[in-house]
């Protein structure tokens, strides 16, 4: 394998990791606040559709992004009403949201565009173009570092850089701000927050809506940066891989980056090679695809570095003495 191939694979890993990373951090906010969210997939899918639709209609990717975020946040609000206000089952609510998104995107897409659930292909400003970082061209002749800078680090859409920047921002919000302290506390022991005179409901809604926001960006990335338009079921299980990455990362932002890059790499390898030969063993691509899920089960089983979810996760808060 030569340097060009490696750079190409890593480059593709980074692109593929971006939606995972955004969705993973979205889930991180929600679950750190004690609200389980298996509806990341649905929110991403809805955002992908509405961002593509709006971008096509206006020819502006940014308006598409806003539309995607809006759609995702509507679904997040439904999840909040069900699981916070009505103290419903958070898992069932998440399942419902996934189906709702899978259905509504195609129903509306078909009605609007009549393309079997797809949106028309996006071009020009309706997509997020790739950004060349300064001097990328000029430096591309420098051996090794040049191509790495020009082809791997430079040349991605703004959303990729945004996703990468979200990691330190998330870390900073969670561990350096008052909001983060309270958010983490409400996921561990809402009674402690409540007796300290802070609103549990308010904090949880805030977390759920941030989750919607980030899923919205993730979905927009799928349809208007990674792809050129919406295709039916285009999230293709990425919401669940993000969930797996979240567990793999033990609900921590920097680990989430690592997990998402790893899972992005697996996807990139799977896309590029039909099978991989490791020490004489023929590893089928399907194994690579299943690996994120297998790894997550292993982590959940607690045989390798037990993952302990936020303690109050999944439980509606009922005030008691």
């Amino acid at each position, binding site marked *: 394998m030569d340097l060009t191939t490696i750079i190409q694979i890593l480059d593709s890993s980074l692109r593929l990791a971006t939606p995972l990373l955004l969705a993973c951090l979205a889930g991180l906010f929600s679950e750190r606040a004690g609200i389980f969210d298996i509806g990341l997939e649905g929110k991403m899918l809805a955002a992908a559709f509405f961002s593509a639709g709006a971008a096509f209609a206006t020819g502006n990717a940014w308006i598409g992004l806003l539309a995607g975020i809006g759609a995702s946040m509507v679904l997040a609000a439904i999840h909040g009403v069900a699981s916070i206000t009505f103290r419903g089952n958070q898992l069932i609510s998440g399942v419902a949201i996934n189906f709702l998104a899978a259905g509504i995107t195609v129903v509306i897409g078909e009605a609007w565009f009549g393309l079997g659930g797809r949106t028309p292909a996006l071009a020009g400003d309706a997509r997020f173009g790739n950004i060349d970082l300064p001097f990328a061209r000029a430096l591309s002749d420098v051996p090794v570092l040049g191509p790495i800078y020009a082809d791997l680090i430079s040349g991605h859409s703004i959303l990729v850089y945004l996703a990468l920047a979200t990691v330190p921002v998330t870390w900073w919000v969670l561990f350096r701000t*008052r909001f983060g302290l309270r958010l983490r506390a409400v996921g*561990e022991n809402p*009674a402690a927050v*409540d007796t300290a005179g802070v609103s549990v409901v308010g904090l949880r809604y805030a977390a759920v809506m941030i989750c919607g926001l980030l899923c919205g960006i993730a979905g927009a990335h799928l349809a208007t940066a990674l792809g050129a338009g919406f295709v039916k079921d285009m999230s293709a299980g990425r919401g669940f891989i993000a969930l797996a990455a979240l567990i793999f990362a033990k609900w921590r932002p920097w680990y989430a980056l690592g997990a998402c890059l790893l899972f992005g790499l697996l996807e990139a390898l799977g896309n590029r090679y039909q099978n991989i030969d490791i020490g004489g063993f023929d590893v089928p691509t399907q194994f690579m695809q299943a690996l994120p899920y297998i790894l997550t089960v292993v982590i959940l089983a607690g045989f390798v570095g037990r993952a302990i979810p936020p303690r109050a996760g999944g439980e509606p808060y009922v005030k008691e*003495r």
Partner: protein
Amino acid sequence: MTVASSGPSHTPPPGDPGLAIELRGISKAFGPVQANKDIDLAVRRGTIHGIIGENGAGKSTLMSILYGFYKADRGTVLIGGRETEIPDSQAAIDAGIGMVFQHFKLVENFTVLENVVLGAEDGAMLKPSLAKARRLLTELAHEYELDVDPDAVIEDIGVGLQQRVEILKALYREADILILDEPTGVLTPAEADHLFRILKGLRDQGKTIILITHKLREIMEITDTVSVMRRGEMTATVKTAETSPEELAELMVGRKVLLRVDKAPARPKDVILEVRDLHVTDAQGVHRLKGVSFDIRAGEVLGIAGVAGNGQSELLEVLGGYEKATGRVRVKGHEIDLTGSASDAQTRRARGIAHVPEDRQREGLIMDYRAWENVAFGYQKDFGGTLMDHAAMKRDCAGKMERFDVRPPDPTLAAKSFSGGNQQKIVLAREIERNPDLLLIGQPTRGVDIGAIEFIHQQIVALRDQGKAILLVSVELDEIMALSDRIAVMFDGRIMGERLPSETDQGELGLLMAGMAGEAA
């Protein structure tokens, strides 16, 4: 219901600013249960004020009203002489009230410092808040012997230190009034002593402390004034220096008409249950039973008296088959497996041990099951191998309902549709009629109405007279006195002493329950 404070006919008398807290006519009902009845209370500034009473006397409800968890149906709260509304915890904090709950409200994987600042941060950034808290904590540590490593994580430190964090939380919020709910329940005697020194220090600095407890020793040791609650009412407030443990015990228990149980003297026969050196350590690593030994003979009732949480529950669970233990237990001479795979509730029942659990709603019954289904609960194997014989279960249930006078006698009603007393009769009927050798019975009349209490007591005596061995655990001293042939008092995982009901009184038992050894009493 009218709110007294807004009554138009008269203006309430002005508050006395020398009082930190004054409660006037506080009432609170939960459904049909009157938890607080027209409570008046005056707590003088700069004192330690004890509130003592049995479980369920309404102490915690009263304090929860004060901390904004519940809204009183009626009554007024005055803080520092001014009438104050407390709709939520934030209002209580603003009014200078700090509360240390019986079950701590701490975030387990946060540091001490983070727990202290949570909800009381200065500004949106954590750093300045944490720095300020660190400084203040050092000062407080000097001032009140409240040393805690600010960077320690809560789950790594002991309960004594966790409690200090709760106190620090309140002080950090500049609380003038500190309420502690059963603070020594989880502490070792040495830790409790330390806590008392801290509390005295706080009082000397002008803080007001309200100490809720049911331990006479604590009241006598550190309070200035003590109020006694009984069955939702405030029965007396006296100066601690002018009272005695005996008097308080009497006030606490009340001059209730002693429940009279007609029973002949016991005629104990062979030993049925032998317990030797039983030890239990729970999942949190707390040593719950510390070497308990006793015997029970056929035809006698051994009553275990004690304040809740001193190991009685664990004792029942070990004997009932669902808590692991070390030590030795024999039933009719047969060794019982206490740890292995043959240790579960089914094998215990097969050995002739029946168990009426302390919490019938959580353990003894499936609340959504109908009465006839509950009558088989725990004995489901008696009603069929693969398919269950519903007709037999219903017949069995109808018979039991008649013999135990369950109202209404309708086997098809769900357990949750019965009153507490009738639920208990269903459990009792199920466990007694199986003709066990040994009956374990925990809190037989908790939440049970007077009429049913009498019936249940008669059943227990009748069972004894049939030659069964009975282990009775109850926090109601009256009940222990009325039913037991021997009384053992448990404190802190040990049996403090054994007495004959004819040769002791509530005062002496109360002192044993408070952990004061027999000789000192």
